[in-house]
Each structure stands twice: as structure tokens, then as C-alpha cells.
């Protein structure tokens, strides 16, 4: 058997977390009198997440880009015919790379801005990374469920310990909302396991559930993924969670956790319940368009920068569902692209907000204004990501939005028209945000001495900026890798 590279990528962060805890326990690292901790632990965590990134690059290199089906498959019996089965295709490959890229960035961004309970912080992030990668690798429904759910605990702790004022409320809301959706999915998984006699994803894709059962199964899976994505009207946990989470938590939440919903639709709902997916297409289109328009309008009226970006995430995820449920190759390709691109852009935007929040300790838009006079580099980067979020051609945001809309147009003209409205609104709220914080005269005297972005922040933002532009100019880099998996996701729907 080959070296289990997927398990290595998945469990390396967890091993790092355990090691850090052991070292801490053995050396009895002391908490200083002022409550701060030795921040070497932060670098130790960073080391492991960078190592994970490197191993994931190795994984990328051992992946055959021209191959078909799932690759690098690992299988070990677990119990009662349920297997620990891992394997990836193009789509999951890129989502794993996104995860292993964003985690070190999130940790770098935390250096200096997080100064209490560092060990627990680092351990939470590393554990979370393991579960996120596991979600994208799992090829068995029960294994997938375990990873999918388990990630809630570290995120719950991240929001609850290092979050803002209302962190307790936000963390509970985040947890219970997601759990409710997931447990319905669990019941559906059990039913599928009992009916088809397996929980292996590859075999379940071949199994034809009867249309009546498909409807219920689809709804159960939808309950879980729609909350995670999130879709209107079950999105309300997201603004709370984002606003309260620390910057790094928001980056991971928007960058990766939200993508699990879209990934779930493509990996499970479409191939396994094709009839139900077709049946529910108008329903998904309706709420996607509502999400895009409604969330954009709500974003416009926000006074909190993070809340604004959170609502913009809801709108952008609307494009993802629109693309997926267009059942066209171009739409699905666009949706996958949009997920990756949004991972970079929203992550970057939360970091951008984090930069000024660390200096001013407020996210209130009206407290800012005229930042361009003091922070020119910051203003430039902010401009880039604003434009990317709006969907300016040349940035990755453009490609995702245009393709999902083209896909939706082929399926339903009205849905595409509604989504186009959302693109306009996104320009409205993003440019408003940019104008009010960056342009104009400095009105708040506290801003007079504000410092421009430092090296640490540049290290975080530059890779994301490069990624955003690169994907915008050369989108085929992505499409070549994801084409196979997009067609695979569509095979059943198109055939049936």
C-alpha cells in the first residue's frame, strides 16, 4: 500500500496539536503574571500548519491531473461494513489546498493580536484544520459526518473564548443551528446505509434511490448544507458568528467552513439524489436569488464592517447554489470557482478589517474615514479586494459570478436576471464601505497616528492578493483541475 498521503495531510495538524499539548504539560510552561503566555507556542503551531501546507503540496504533485475518478484512495475497515475511506478528486484537492493555505495565514494574522490563552488557541486551530481537511477527503458518509460535525467544537471554542462581547450567544447559536441541520443528515445517512447496504460514497453514487425516498433524503441533506453554506433564511447565525469571532476565526469560517455546504451539494446531493435535485431546482433558485438580493440590501445598511462582509458572503454563496443547481457544466464549474475565489477574497477582507480593528478596536464604519492619507498600502490592498468582491474583470470574483450566471441563464432566465441585480448591489455596498472608510478627510482624531500595514499583515495579504489576480487572469488553471469532478457531479442529473 502506498504512503497514505491523505491521512498524513489530515492528521498532521492534529498530531501537532497533541505534541504542543504534551510539550506544554511536560515543561510546565508558565503563564506570566499579566496573563500573557509565551508566544513561542504560536510559532510552533505555525510550523505545523506550514508543514501541513507543504505536505499538501506533495499531495498535489502526486495527484494525476489527467486521471479520472477518486485518487489517492485509502481504505481501512472501521466497523459493520463502514470503512474509513479517503480519496480526492480535483474539486476536493483545491479545497484542501485552500484550507492548508488559509490556516497558516490565519495563525500569522493572530500573532500579536491574540494574547491570552495562546496554547488553547493554537490547538483549536490545528484541530479544526484536521477536521476541515477530513471533510474534503472523506469518501464514506459516516466518516464525512464525523469530520463535518467535529469541526463545530473547536470553532465553538474559538468564537466563545477569543470572540467579542456577545461571543457566548454567537457561539451557541452557531453550534446549535448547525447541529440541528446535521442531525437530520445523520438520520438520512443511516437510512441510506440500511437501504443501500453501504455508506461508501462511490457505491452510493451508483445506487438509485427511489424518487419518493430521494425527496426526503435530499431535504435532510439540504437542511445540513443550507445551514452551513448558509442559505437564506437559515443564514442568521452567520452575521453573529462573524462579528463575534476573532479575525482568524472569521477568515476560516468564511474561507472554508462555508464551502463545506457547496461541497456537500456537489459531492452528495447531485450524484445521489438526481431526481430530487431536479425537482427542487426552482426552490433552490428562488431562495438563492432571494439570498443574493436580500443579503446585498442588508449588507448595504450595515454599520459594522464585519457584518457587512458577512452578509456579502451570504450573497456570494447564493451564486454558488445558483451555479450548482443550474445543472450545466459551466454553472457548476463557476460554482466551484466561486467557492475557491470567495475563500481567498472573503478571507482577505476579514483580514483587512482585522488590520484596522487591531489598531482602533472598533469595527464601526463611521469611526473611520480618510485612511488613504495615513495608510496608502492598506488602501491599495483594500481596493483590490473590494474590486474582487464586486466582481471586477481581471479578478477571480468576476469569473465565478459570470460563469454561475451564465449557467443559471441557461436554466432559468429570471434567476439569472435576479442574480445580476445582486452584482449591482454588491458594487453599491462594497464601494460605499470603501468610500466611507478609506476616502474623505480624517474626521476621527484618533486616526491621525494610525500606522500602515506591517510586514506580518503583508505576509498574510500578499498571497491572497496574488491568488485573486492569478485566478482572475488564468481561470483555466482551476477549470482544468475541476472539470472532471464537475462533470462527475452532473453525470447522474444530466443522465436522468
Amino acid at each position, binding site marked *: 500500500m502506498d504512503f497514505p498521503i491523505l491521512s498524513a495531510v489530515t492528521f498532521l495538524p492534529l498530531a501537532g496539536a497533541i505534541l504542543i499539548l504534551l510539550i506544554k504539560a511536560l515543561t510546565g510552561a508558565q503563564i506570566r503574571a499579566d496573563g500573557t503566555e509565551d508566544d513561542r507556542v504560536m510559532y510552533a503551531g505555525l510550523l505545523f500548519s506550514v508543514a501541513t501546507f507543504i505536505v499538501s503540496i506533495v499531495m498535489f504533485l502526486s495527484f494525476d491531473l489527467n486521471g479520472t475518478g477518486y485518487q489517492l484512495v485509502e481504505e481501512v475497515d472501521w*466497523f459493520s461494513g463502514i470503512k474509513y475511506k479517503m480519496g480526492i478528486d480535483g474539486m476536493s484537492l483545491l479545497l484542501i489546498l485552500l484550507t492548508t493555505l488559509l490556516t497558516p495565514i490565519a495563525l500569522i494574522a493572530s500573532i500579536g493580536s491574540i494574547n491570552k490563552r495562546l496554547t488553547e488557541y493554537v490547538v483549536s486551530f490545528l484541530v479544526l484544520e484536521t477536521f476541515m481537511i477530513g471533510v474534503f477527503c472523506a469518501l464514506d458518509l459516516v466518516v464525512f459526518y464525523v469530520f463535518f460535525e*467535529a469541526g463545530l467544537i473547536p470553532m465553538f471554542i474559538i468564537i466563545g473564548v477569543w470572540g467579542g462581547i456577545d461571543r457566548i450567544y454567537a457561539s451557541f447559536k452557531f453550534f446549535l443551528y448547525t447541529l440541528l441541520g446535521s*442531525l437530520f443528515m445523520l438520520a438520512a445517512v443511516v437510512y441510506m446505509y440500511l437501504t443501500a447496504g453501504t455508506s461508501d460514497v462511490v457505491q452510493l453514487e451508483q445506487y438509485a434511490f427511489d424518487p419518493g425516498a430521494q425527496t426526503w433524503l435530499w431535504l435532510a441533506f439540504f437542511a445540513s448544507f443550507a445551514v452551513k453554506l448558509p442559505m437564506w433564511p437559515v443564514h442568521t447565525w452567520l452575521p453573529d458568528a462573524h462579528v463575534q469571532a476573532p479575525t482568524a476565526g472569521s477568515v476560516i469560517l468564511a474561507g472554508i467552513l462555508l464551502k463545506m455546504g457547496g461541497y456537500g451539494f456537489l459531492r452528495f446531493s447531485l450524484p445521489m439524489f438526481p431526481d430530487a435535485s431536479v425537482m427542487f431546482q426552482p426552490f433552490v433558485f428562488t431562495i438563492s436569488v432571494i439570498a443574493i438580493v436580500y443579503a446585498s440590501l442588508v449588507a448595504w445598511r450595515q454599520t459594522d464592517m464585519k457584518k457587512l462582509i458577512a452578509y456579502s458572503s451570504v450573497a456570494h454563496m447564493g451564486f454558488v447554489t445558483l451555479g450548482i443547481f443550474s445543472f450545466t457544466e459551466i454553472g457548476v464549474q463557476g460554482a466551484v470557482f466561486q467557492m475557491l475565489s470567495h475563500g481567498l477574497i472573503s478571507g482577505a477582507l476579514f483580514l483587512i478589517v482585522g488590520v484596522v480593528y487591531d489598531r482602533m478596536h472598533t469595527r464601526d464604519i463611521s469611526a473611520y474615514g480618510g485612511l488613504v492619507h495615513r495608510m496608502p498600502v492598506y488602501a491599495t490592498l483594500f481596493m483590490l479586494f473590494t474590486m474582487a468582491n464586486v466582481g471586477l474583470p481581471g479578478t477571480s470574483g468576476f469569473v465565478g459570478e459570470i460563469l454561475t450566471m451564465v449557467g443559471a441563464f441557461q436554466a432559468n432566465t429570471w434567476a439569472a436576471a435576479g442574480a445580476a441585480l445582486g452584482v449591482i448591489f454588491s458594487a453599491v455596498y462594497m464601494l460605499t464601505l470603501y468610500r466611507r472608510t478609506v476616502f474623505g478627510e480624517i474626521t476621527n482624531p484618533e486616526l491621525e497616528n494610525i500606522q500602515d500595514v506591517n510586514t506580518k499583515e503583508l505576509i498574510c495579504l500578499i498571497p491572497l492578493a496574488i491568488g485573486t489576480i492569478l485566478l482572475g487572469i488564468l481561470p483555466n488553471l482551476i477549470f482544468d483541475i475541476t472539470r472532471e469532478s464537475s462533470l462527475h457531479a452532473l453525470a447522474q442529473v444530466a443522465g436522468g
Partner: protein
Amino acid sequence: MFDLETILTAIAPEVLLAAAGLLGVTIGAFLGDRFNGLSFKFGALVLFAAAALAGYHWEGGRAFDGLVETSSYANFAKVVSFVSGGIALLMAEGFLRRHETLRYEYSLLIIFAALGMGMILSSANFMTLYLGVETLSLSSYVLASFHRDSPRSSEAGLKYFVLGALASGLLLYGMSLVYGFSGSTSYEIVAEAEPTMGLLFGMVLMITGLAFKVSAAPMHVWTPDVYEGSPSPVVAFFATAPKMASMVVFAIVLYTAFPQVTAFENWQVIVGIIAAASMIVGAFGALPQTNLKRLLGYSSIANMGYALVAVAAGVQYGAGSLLIFMTAYVIASLGLFGGVLSMRREGGMVEDINELAGLVRRQPGLASALTLLLVSVSGFPLAFGFLGKLAVIQAGVSSGMWPLVIILVLSSVIAMYYYLRIVKIMWFDEQAEDFEPVDGWVTTTVYISALVSVALLIFVAPFSELAETVAAGLIS
């Protein structure tokens, strides 16, 4: 027919427990207080030996003209019950010593309670069942009021006794009706009997009596009070060994005396309703609780509700799931009550959940272990409890009881709230004072049960195969 060989294959653990209990009484009479400390090791050793004997005579057998019959299914439950009872006994010693109630009667009562558990698990006749239930219950009443100078403990014992006696009465009355309408007290013969209204009545009364013993709603009202009032190590015992034994007996009686192939399938509906009521009561009842023991009492009601879903699924679908679920619950509960026993400050034990505030700062190991155990008992992935809940959902889905599955899902989410609240207090809140160190058995139990909960999540295959095998034996 008095064949020692046959008797021993069927009830060797019970013979040992009875002999050891009587020996203990004799030793106690001679040594007096000098036996106090030693008796706990003695009792634990006896219980572990009994578990080993149950494992040795795994296939079981039949004796006393069918008064007792032990299946490997029952032996599975015996092993878990005796081992957890032994661990609960070891955890009790330090607590009782500090409260100056370290008396050898405690361990002897546990041994007799274990004898009762063994008897009910080996019962094949209502007479044996009733004797076993009473042996277990009478020992439990005394244990509940073991701190006889404490009003709370006496109150707990009295409440438990009065309500328990009522339940025993119902059980006995049900048995007499069943006997009257079927002409026998043997499970086998009752199973073949013509279903009449009287028999049905008897069965319902018996279910009611048994529901009390497993603290299922609406016969649950004693649970929170007894959990809160009884000395903590006693609760650690109540929550584990007798729960396992009574729940499995509940299943065995229904499966063998009222099998679903006859016209007695009605019990499925009744048990289903009890299960739903327990899940709902357990979920909502725990929400406002701040006393950890009381909260765990409600949590056990909810968990018994989940277990009853497996029972209601019937022997074919639910029997194996029940064992997996109950074992997971017992392992997690032992650790959690170890946590309760660790909550000691100067001036005595504390029980309010807010006393756990910020525990992770000062005792990160204990806090992490307790978090894992809460995760396990809530059925969240990451620990063995998840596979228990998965098994129960599987039982519910395969027997087509969708309403129960949906109630299970919803009540799990509600229950998650109060488990999370404890996690929140341990992880998010400003820290309270340190706990005083407790004795090694308690700490060890907390860590071991957390480790076992995680280990069994990964290496569950042999365990679940065993559970399925013994459950299959029950069908034929």
C-alpha cells in the same frame, strides 16, 4: 435435578456474589471497623471476579427447571454492570473517608445490589425477576440514604423507597395478572399464551414497573431528587451499573416473554411513547438546572429515552444497538461522576455547575477529559457516544419508527445546549478557585473513561461485532 455444573454455567457470578456478600458480613462482624477500608478492595475484587466469571461462562445456560436462563446477551450486560459497579465502588472510598462514613456495609450493599443485577439478567421466570429486582432495589434504597445524618440523603432514600415500592407493587401486580391469564410465570410459556385483555393489562403494568427502574418518563420523577440528594459515589453507581442491568432486562423481558411474533407487538407503541416522553422530559428538564448532579439526572432520563428507542425497535433491530448505546453511556457516566467527585473545595463538596468555571486554566487535563465525556454522552462525533447514538438511530430507522427518530434528533439538539453550557463554563468563564486534589481512583477513572471513549470510537469493530453476535443469539 441438582447438577452443580449446570448451575455454575448459568449463574456462577451470582453464586460468587452471594457467597462473597455473606462472607463479607461475617468478616465485618468479627473485624468491625478494621474491615472498613479493606472492604472496598474486597468488594471491587469480588465484582471484577464476577465479571470475569460471566465472561468465562459466556454462553450461559439454564438451571433450576428454567427459573434461570443466562444468554450471552445477558452476560454481556453482566460484564459491563459488574465492572462499572466495581469502578464506582473504588471511586467511593476516598469520598466516604473524608465524610467519615467509610463503613464496610457500603461495599457489601454494592455486592448485594450486583447480586440483584445478576439475578434479573439471568431470570427466565417472573419469580426470579421479582426477587432480583427487590434485591437490587432494597440495596439501592439503603445506599441512597447512606449519609444517614444528612437530611438530603435521608430524604433521597425515603423518596426512592416510597416510589420504588409503588413501582415494585405495580410490577408485581402486573406479574400476577399475567400469571392469572396465562397460567405460568415462565417467560417461555407466557410467550405462547393466548393474548387476552387481562394479559395485556398485566404487561402494561409490568412495563410501568420496569420503566420506573430505568427512570423513564413518566416514571422518572424520583430521579433528579435522588441524584441530587444521595451521596455522589452512590449516584455514580446508580447512574451506571443498575441502569445497564435494568435496561437490558427491560429488553430481555419484552423480547422473550412478549415476543413480537405473537400478538403482543403492542408494547412497541407503549415503549415508543415512554421513549419519546423520556427524551422530551430529559431535554427540557435539564435546561434550567444548575446542580450538576441534578442535571446529570435529567441527562440520564434523556439517555434512557434514547435507549428505549432501541428497545422499541424490537429484538431484530434494537438488541445489538441497545448494548452499544448503553455501554457508551455507562463509560461516559463513570467518567462524568468522577468529575462530580473531583469537585471538592475546602469545606466540602460543591455541586453547582458554575463551580467548574474556568477549569481549563488550572486543571486543563481534567477539563479536557470532562469535555470529551460530555461530548460522548451527548452523542456528538469525536467519542464513542456517537456510535451509540448512531446505533440507536439505526435501530429506529430500520424498524421504521420515523416519529421517534425525529424526536430523538430534536431532543438531542436541545440536550446539546445544556452539555455545551457546561463546556462553556469550563472553557469561557473566568476561573473560580482550584479544586482540592482528590484520590487517585477518581482521577484515573476520569482519564481512563475519556481515553476509552475515544479509543472505542476508532477501534469499535470487535466490540460492535460482539454486540451483534450476542444479539443474534437472542433471536434464535
